[in-house]
Each structure stands twice: as C-alpha cells, then as structure tokens.
C-alpha cells in the first residue's frame, strides 16, 4: 500500500534524493557498459582488432538458431535452474524453520549453516572435484554399501546433476539465513492469535508464516534464478562444460566465445539471452508476489 505522498513536493524531492546515489553509480558505471555490450550484439568485434569492427545486423542473433552448442547450453542451463532453484528454496525455508525458537547454541548453528557461502566458488568447486572422483569421499562412502567407483563428473549422464547437487549444498545455508531474517518481521501477535485459535504446525505455516514471507520468497526465487542462469565458475573448474558438452552452460559458452574465439559480438547475444530469460522470470515473479501485509496477514 503506497500512499499519495507523491502529491506533496516534499515527498517528491525526497524520492529523488533517495534514488540519487544509486542513480549516480548506475549512470556513471553501468550505462556505458550496458550500451556497449548491447551494441556488440550487432557488431563483429574483436579486441585485438578494434579498428576492424563492423556492423553485422541480426547475423549474431540468427546464429543462435544454428549453433548446436548454444542449444545444448540453453537446455543445460534451464535444467540447472529448474532443478536447483525450487529445491534450494524449499530446503532453505525448512532449515530456517528449524532455527526458530529457543535452541541451545543457535549462533553456532547459524554460523555452521553459513560456512559454504564463505568460501570462494573456485575453492568449493575444486574440493568437490576431488569429492566426486573415483576414490574420492563420495565413492568411498558409497563403497561401504558396495556402490562406489563411479566417475560422477566424467559420466555425461551424471555430471550435470553432480554440479547441481553441489550448488544446492552451497546455496541453502545462505538463503536460510535470509529467510531467518525475514521471520523477524512477522509480528508476534499473529502467532499468538493462531495459537489461541488452536492452529497446529502446518496450519500456522500455511496461514501465518508463508503469507508473511511472500515478499522474501519472491526475493529468494528471483535472486536465485538470476544467479543460476549465470552458472559458470563451477562448470569451468569442474568439467569445462564436458563431458560431451553435458555441463555446457550459457555463460560458459559466452566466455568461450568471447575470450577464446575472440568473437565478442556473438558472445553478447548469448549474454542478452541470459538477460532476457532472467528478466522474464523476474517480472513474472515480482508481479505475482506483490506486497503481502495488506492481503495475506491471516487474522491481523
């Protein structure tokens, strides 16, 4: 619920001032790179020969439809997003719920949860590379029940799921902390009222917690999706897009196209594909998860 504050001059100048710092940073540092990278999509550009840059119109875009690597990368990336985002979100919510209330050593648990996020992606990817190797921890553990010995990252069928599992592991704690922080905004009265009405765990979840968390759930979904569409470092370190391109992702393909093939123009249209996909998804989610306190506050 937004007020009619924009009617008053004081309100309007306040808004302008509030948005000014962001606008300055954006204007100074992002407008140029955005325009430049957008223009690249219609050009043939090679950093080693900037003078030879020339217009190619829609040729780069047309190429998307004939590039089997792009098709594979698109498919893998979508699989990655669909396979990790919902799982991570649900697990993060679950873990945050576990943290509610009085628990001995809660700070310790919160810190423990957060540990994967602290490490750089490169380090995590390298560790998991060893973890998944034949003779690595996972196979040794499975060997106890007689199942070990599989090359998780060298089997085209299991490489992508292995990377996805790692991503879920790395992300859950982070989003759990965000959900946990959002719990703080839920007024106690709502819970008290629910208790008075005899609501059990799941009922309270459905009618108090989840509706109040809608904005945050929306946030987590959007952020996680945007991030997942750009999965790159993990596959670069662990599989380089292999085997047989089964872990090729859009940003990896972009990276190869730009920095190894020196074809920045085509790389740009791949980048904007990611941008458009993220954008569509974000718009849809943001629209659907409008402010919740006016509508979903249970009996508030």
């Amino acid at each position, binding site marked *: 619920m937004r007020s009619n504050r924009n009617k008053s001059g004081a309100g309007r100048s306040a808004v302008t001032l509030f948005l000014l710092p962001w606008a300055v940073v954006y204007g100074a540092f992002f407008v140029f790179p955005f325009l430049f990278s957008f223009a690249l999509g219609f050009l043939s550009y090679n*950093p080693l020969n900037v003078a030879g840059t020339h217009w190619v119109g829609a040729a780069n875009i047309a190429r998307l439809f004939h590039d089997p690597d792009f098709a594979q990368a698109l498919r893998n990336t979508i699989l990655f997003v669909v396979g990790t985002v919902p799982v991570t979100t649900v697990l993060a919510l679950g873990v945050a719920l576990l943290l509610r209330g009085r628990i001995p050593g809660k700070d310790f648990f919160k810190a423990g949860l957060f540990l994967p996020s602290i490490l750089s992606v490169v380090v995590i990817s390298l560790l998991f590379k060893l973890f998944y*190797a034949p003779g690595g921890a996972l196979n040794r553990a499975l060997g106890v029940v007689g199942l070990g010995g599989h090359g998780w990252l060298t089997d085209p069928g299991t490489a992508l799921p292995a990377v996805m599992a790692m991503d879920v592991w790395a992300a859950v704690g982070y989003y759990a902390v965000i959900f946990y922080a959002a719990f703080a905004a839920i007024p106690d009265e709502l819970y008290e009222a629910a208790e008075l009405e005899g609501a059990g765990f799941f009922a309270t979840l459905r009618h108090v917690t989840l509706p109040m968390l809608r904005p945050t759930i929306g946030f987590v979904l959007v952020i996680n999706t945007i991030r997942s569409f750009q999965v790159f470092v993990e596959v670069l370190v662990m599989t380089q897009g*292999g*085997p047989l391109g089964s872990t090729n992702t859009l940003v990896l393909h972009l990276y190869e196209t730009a920095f190894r093939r020196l074809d920045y123009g085509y790389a740009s249209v791949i980048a904007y594909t990611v941008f458009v996909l993220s954008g569509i998804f974000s718009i849809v989610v943001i629209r659907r998860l409008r402010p919740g306190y006016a509508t979903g506050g249970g009996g508030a």
Partner: protein
Amino acid sequence: MNRRSRQAIVAVAAVLSVAMALSSPGCGRKDERKTIRFWQFWDIAVIRPMVEQFEAEHKDIRVEVEQLTWKSGLEKIQAALASGTQPDLCELGSTWVPRFSYEGVLEDLTALYEVEADSFLMWDSAIWKGRVYGLPWVQGSRALFYNRDLFRRAGLDPDRPPTTWAELLDAASRIDALSPDIYGFGQNLGERYVLYKKFMAFAWGNGGVILDGEGKVRIAEAPTREALEFYLELSKFSLKEKQEVLDHHFKTGKLGMQISGAWNLGNYAIEAPGLDYGVALVPKPAADRGVHASFAGAEMLVVFKGSPVRDDSVELARFLRQYQRAKALSLAAGSVFPASRLALEDTTFTRDPKLRVFMEQALTSYTAPAHPGWIEMEEVINRTVEEVLYGRRAPRWCLESAAEEIEKIASKFEKQPE
C-alpha cells in the same frame, strides 16, 4: 535532513576521502627513465631479480612487471588491447601467438630470428606468413611416466619401458589385469583443454598432420585415423578420468603409465617419495617407422605493436632469454625448460635420467599448428577424441566431421584483417 543522516553522509564521505588519499600508488613522483611495461605469468619473486638486474645494466630504463594468472590472464590482455593500454613486452603461450600475429598486433621480430634461429627450439608457432613475431623463452614437452613396481609385478622389465605401440598396448593390458583397481594407462577424459595434447602425440608419431604446409586439412587421413583407433584400443586398459584423478592413482601406485609433463617430477618427489617410477620417450608406432613424437608447449615473449619502447623491450626480451636466466626460471618453476639449445647439453638437465628424457623428447616434439584459428580447432579435436572414447561414433566418422569443421574454421581466416 536531520542530524543522523548528515552524520551518515559525512562518515561515508570521510571514508571515501581516505580511500582516495591512499590510492594512486606512485603518483607525484617524477621519473625521468623510460618505462617498459612487462606482463608475464610466473612468480614475481623469480622475475623481479632479473628485471632489477636489467635496470641496473640500463640505468635509463624502468621496468614495471605485472604477474598474470593462468586462468584469467588472457582476458586482461584482451581488455588492455581493446582499450589501447596493452603492455610493451608480454608473455604469450605458443598456442596464442599465431592468432595475435594474424591480427597484426605484434611487432615483427624477424631480424632477431635471423640471428638466433639455430640457438633456440620451438620457433614454429612464432612464424606467420614468413615473418617471426615471438621469441621462445621456455618450453615443456610431455613424456611417458611409468611405474616400475607395477612393471615388475606384471612380469615386465622395468628397465625396458615400451618403445612401440604394440609394446605399450601389451604393457597396459598386463598391468590392467593385475587387479580391478589397478589400471594400465591413463587417458584424460571429462575435461577439455588437455585431451588433444595426449592424443596428438600418437598421431604425430605416426606421421599424422592436422594442417599441412599449404593449409590443407589432413586430419582425416590414414595416419591420424590409425592413431585414434590405437588410442581407442588402448582405452580398454585405461583409466579414463580427469588429470587430478590420474595423478592421484599414479602416486598411489594404481596406475601403470601416463603421458604427462615435467612438473610431476617435483610433485612426485614431495607427495609420493617412495614411488619407483621411470620416464621414457612416447612410444612410436613400430620399431621401423614413425617418430617418438610428443606435444610441446612453449612460452614466448612478444612485443606489442605501437610500443613507444620497442627496441628496449626487445632488449629486455633478449636479456630474459639469456640462458642463465631462462635456466633460473625453469628451475624455479619446475615445469619447463629453457627454449635455448644450450639446455640440451647442460649437465643440470642431462645428468638426471628423467630430465634427460625430457630434453631428448623436446627434439621430437611438435607444437600445435601455427594457425590463428588453432584455439577453435583444438576444441574440435578435443570433442572428437571425447566422442570416440565415449564410444559415440567410430574414429573414421569422427575424424571426417572434424576435418569439415576445421576446414570451416580455417576458411574464416583466409583474409588478412584490415
């Protein structure tokens, strides 16, 4: 605006001002010397003394050295070129020099080549259309590592490593049969940039060629096909995994043989001191034909065109490539050898039997074709080997598709830019 917000803004401004005051290193100092900007990939602790000695010998020159990471260094070079702020002297891998030469961003160093041609190895990648654009600095080839212990257990003579493909196959199959968790040979799979290096050793050894002197694509011809078919045969007794896994198995005595580089000599000494292993030349097709070929990579020094200190940069390059310095770098890095032919007779490298093999191997090692499209072609070959090892398609068809793709790539570079 109230007090709190004013305080906040003042605080932020103060922090930013401090940052500004602390920034711009070296500003305000007037330096009359010429500056050479030198970008390279090695540990700066090793390079700096060399550079300082150069400065001592050339009092009018200052050298700014920057160390690049192997992973992202090339991106930085590209960004610098795009904005016209590229360094004067730069280190480039031999697989990249042809592309940079083709694009015309490198200074022509043919005059230096004419003087040095016979004293250095690894010139091929530096030559484009008859002119020379790079100066070999250090090089490294790949050789056959084999576990002598496993050889003994398999009934093979540890002092007679395989010298032909047949012997290699035989040794691999015997070692592989020793136990379910012991493998005969190590083949890289599941990662990209390495595959072609291991396979091409066999192709080149059999006289196979990717592109010939006239630029014709010959990869689908018999010699390479035979090599790929042999490689596929060998895979039956191989551990097909990523390099880390291969190394781990070799160090723990579970892998009989693998083709790898000199950096392992140092690694194995530290991480597997009890390992009884030997090094040999890569086997050739048969006793009476073929070559003990292998892959070699070289690091080259190039000067970017338009550098205001071109001659001084060339002088610095010459200085760094002088034998004692290239040797110091090689010993510090442990993974390469000087590109100078003097290394071939240096007892430091010839006394140790394992190092001597690497020196010998360097003489019959091949670098990737000096073609500007090589980076893309390399990808095609990697994919081809992958497809064959995963059993997706037979070698013949894979190679024919590869030939078509490589031709397409080559045709993109037919016209000179500008």
